[in-house]
């Protein structure tokens, strides 16, 4: 492995994803190649159905590619089984989803603690309280998701994403379900925390404005990598 590839926390080569349908095999992603450096922020943009969410699922090891390879912090995902990929996610990855995906029966604090607890971390509480404080929810620790607004739920999800200090953060349309005010708030929070923690951010969005806040933008069109452009934050990182 070269020095360059060691700097690349995500290395994608020849990534292809096909699914079987009633009408035969359908190619969703075709021969995608790119890399993401450690600490870099990258947006994956494209129209609905372009394959950007599929790409995210392959990058995060939630699904297995039909062809090609994803190296995540040096580990080739195709060589790992489901359990090993889960272990990898537990150690190195954080997530923020469009639909928040909080566990309804756990409080805000407990939701934030969940990844750490699953990884066997005994001192998760202090870190979770601190993260919730950072997202401005220190007064909502004991609230359940149904007692929080959409913006608040996503702030909990962001706090959860940063617990355990992941190397990479995947965010899938994090502000799409929110009004513009709350959306901006979330975006700011996400970028601020990302910067503070030195995390690599991979953001899936169809929002050009949001994408521009990243250093690089990967454009996906019809399952193919159309181009990689510089984002508005290119000179920042």
């Amino acid at each position: 492995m070269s020095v360059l590839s060691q700097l690349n926390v995500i290395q994608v080569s020849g990534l292809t994803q096909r699914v079987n349908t009633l009408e035969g095999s359908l190619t969703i992603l075709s021969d995608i190649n790119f890399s993401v450096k450690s600490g870099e922020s990258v947006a994956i943009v494209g129209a609905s159905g372009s394959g950007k969410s599929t790409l995210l699922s392959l990058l995060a090891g939630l699904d297995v590619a039909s062809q090609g390879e994803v190296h995540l912090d040096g580990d080739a995902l195709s060589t790992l089984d489901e359990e090993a990929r889960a272990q990898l996610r537990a150690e190195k990855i954080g997530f923020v989803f469009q639909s928040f995906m909080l566990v309804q029966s756990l409080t805000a604090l407990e939701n934030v603690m969940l990844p750490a607890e699953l990884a066997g971390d005994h001192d998760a509480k202090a870190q979770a309280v601190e993260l919730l404080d950072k997202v401005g929810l220190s007064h909502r620790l004991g609230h359940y998701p149904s007692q929080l607004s959409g913006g608040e739920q996503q702030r909990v999800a962001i706090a959860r994403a940063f617990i355990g200090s992941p190397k990479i953060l995947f965010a899938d349309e994090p502000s799409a379900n929110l009004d513009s005010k709350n959306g901006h708030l979330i975006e700011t929070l996400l970028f601020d925390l990302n910067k503070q923690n030195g995390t690599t951010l991979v953001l899936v969005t169809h929002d050009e404005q949001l994408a521009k806040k990243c250093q690089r933008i990967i454009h996906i069109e019809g399952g193919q990598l159309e181009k990689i452009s510089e984002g508005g934050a290119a000179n920042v990182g």
Partner: protein
Amino acid sequence: MWVKLAFKLFSREFRRGELTIIFAAIALAVLTVFSLSAITERISLNIAHKSSDFIASDRRLSSNHAFEPQLLKQASQFGLATAQMLYFDSMLFANDELVLGSVKATTAAYPLRGKITIKDNLTSKAYEVETGPKAGSVWLSEGLFYTLKVNVGDKVELGAGKFNVTKVLVKEPDAPFFSLSGNKRVLLNYADIETTQAVQPGSRVFHRLLFAGNEQELSDYYAWLKPQLKSNQNWQGLKDRQSPLGNNLDRAERFLLLAGLFGIMLAAVAMAVSAKRYCERQYDPVAMMKTLGGSRKVIRNIFLLHLSLVTTFSIVAGLALGFVLQTIGADYLATFMGTELPQAGVRPWLLSAFIGLVCALMFSLKPLLDLFDIPPLRVLRRNLGDTLAISRIHIGLSMLTIFVLMWLFSGEIVTTLILFASTLVVIAVLFALSRLLFAAGRKLGLSPGSSWSLALATLQKRANANAIQLISFALAIKLMLFLVVLKNDIISDWQMQVPADAPNMFIINIAKEEVTPIKKFFKDNNIAHEDFYPVFSGRVDAVNGEEFARRVSKQEGEEKDENAREGVSREPNLTWLTSLPEGNEITEGEWFSDGGTGDDIEVSVFDGWQETLGLKIGDIITLLVNEQPIDAKVTSFRKVDWGSLKPNFVMILSPNMAGKVPVTYFSAAKLHDRDTKGISQLLQRYPTISMIDIKAQIEQAQSIIAQVSLAIGFVLSIVLVSGALVLVSQVQASLAERMQEVVILRTLGAKGRLIKLATLYEFMLLGGIAGLVAAIVSDVALLVIQQQLFDIAGRLHPYIWLLGPVSGALFVSSIGYFMVANTMRQNTQGLLRKLG
């Protein structure tokens, strides 16, 4: 670490009500099985105790020959209480009057069950005692006092002995319902048999050993006894077919068993559905945990711990609630019946806990395995994993579990198979029907936006889910209808056996010339009575010219001089009749073809004798009547209902017997207390006639029937409550699935009335269809079950074809309506939040 997380998740899920349905389902299974089996056991024990009165013991051994002393000795070693009895006929003499009496000599322990009713003199009040007369004294039945012209305190000669008459014998617990010698009964102390010198080698005597103890001791003893039983020795229990209430007890037990089975089925349906639903609701959290790095092992451990906890809690809760319910029920029954119910053993506890455990494990297994397989990708593709929802393995596993549980609980493969097969028919019919109906629904062309259109559209859209819904509604309705109808049939069948106006007194030994004046007496005193039957005694001497004793011995594979069983060797009561008596049924052959007026004498024989004697249609039986041989051709065999409390005849001859033998007449009447004086006068005027009071027997039978009916009603209500709970939980589950649609419709501005009415119509259709199919299938299954298991003439019940759909539609739609109306009271924002 996962343990802490698992407990935290469990307590939250429990508090949020996510586990309530699964908890309720297991608890319901345990509660139903516990309360049903405990109540059934307690009632069965009580009935068994009460019914043991009918044979004055729990089991008895009868023979024409004396028993080896070893039999009694061994019984004591097995912990059984024993008593000895000897029946023989002997002449009684007093005041120059001579009469043949039926003597029963008993040891001091007699009766082991029940009590003897006696009077201090003819006019005093009857009371109960626990043992027979002391040595040197006898108790005589009322008729003998008149015939022998004696009073209490006088002496009578019995055989070679002289005895003090100390009491009037009113009733022994094991007195036969009907016997020609019924009114000339003598109770004697066993020690006095020798004094009478009436029992000599070759005398016609019947020996009986009585046994009482718990079931285990009895069956242990029987296991020891069985290999050495001689064919002239007959082991009888109260449940033997020919014992008067044997049939009814058998039916009652079968009903209680069925009710228990249905309880298990209902709880199993609730469990299978709720386990699946609970697991489906965990798909998102599991996908989330996997995405956040939770390993399969940790997730498996978390949910297995949840299952273990919820199973433990629900079994404990089910047992506790079941115990409370059965205690309240048993107390109520005991108060009503004026008796104390014996405590149940450990069986209900073990059985219900075991069934709860099996239900939890088997019905959750597949949904849980599916849950562990949920791909983490579901966090991005929300419907991923939904296809796992309907699994053939889950259905197959659930059905197998239900079958095995039913079989285990009942120990009867036939009953289990009938119920299970009919249930499968319900499922198949409903599945096909739901497909057809829901596919046709849209073609009706209702205007969009109407409640009916919305209801039909929802039904069609959710065809698969609705089919499952329909099946569980129909199963619950089917089981409930089935039990209600069966209960009514059984009870009305019993009531028919002992109708309120049933005769309570048999009048026998009526001479031909006495028939007219006695009829007139009845008429003058407004006493309802039955026809006067000609009755005579005869002994079966030969069949097709072959001597009877030899023939019976051959059947029994015994030596020639070993006599036959008691039932066959006894001189049976005979009559002639023009038509088949009520309650009898021809099983083979035909009733007297030309009205029995031809040259040949024909005979219709009780089918029990057909087997014992190896008789067939066309055989010639030679009867010895007053030493005069009479040949009769067997033209039919009859089933006789010995539990009917009516005079039953082993042999009925054709009417052309009239004039060939001397007869006395027999009748039965319904007497009231006001008739007592008139009856005494009648007995004094015609001292040769005898009256047998069967009031006590009727009352005893009625009390047992009332007790069993009450028990059945109680058990039925438990099953009905379970059924209703299953329906409620089903509607609730279905509504939870519909919430999203309700919220969308509400958000889009649909009026509450439209949504409520659409739900009402949808559930009305579901309930109606489920009820109709349930009614039809129940009726067919009932037809089979009644004939196969309950010995009741199977018939269809058209009223349930209406009752099923109407009650189904009303019940299901009203629950649905109520729940939706409740939801509608919350504001739309609140509903949206709840959906998450």
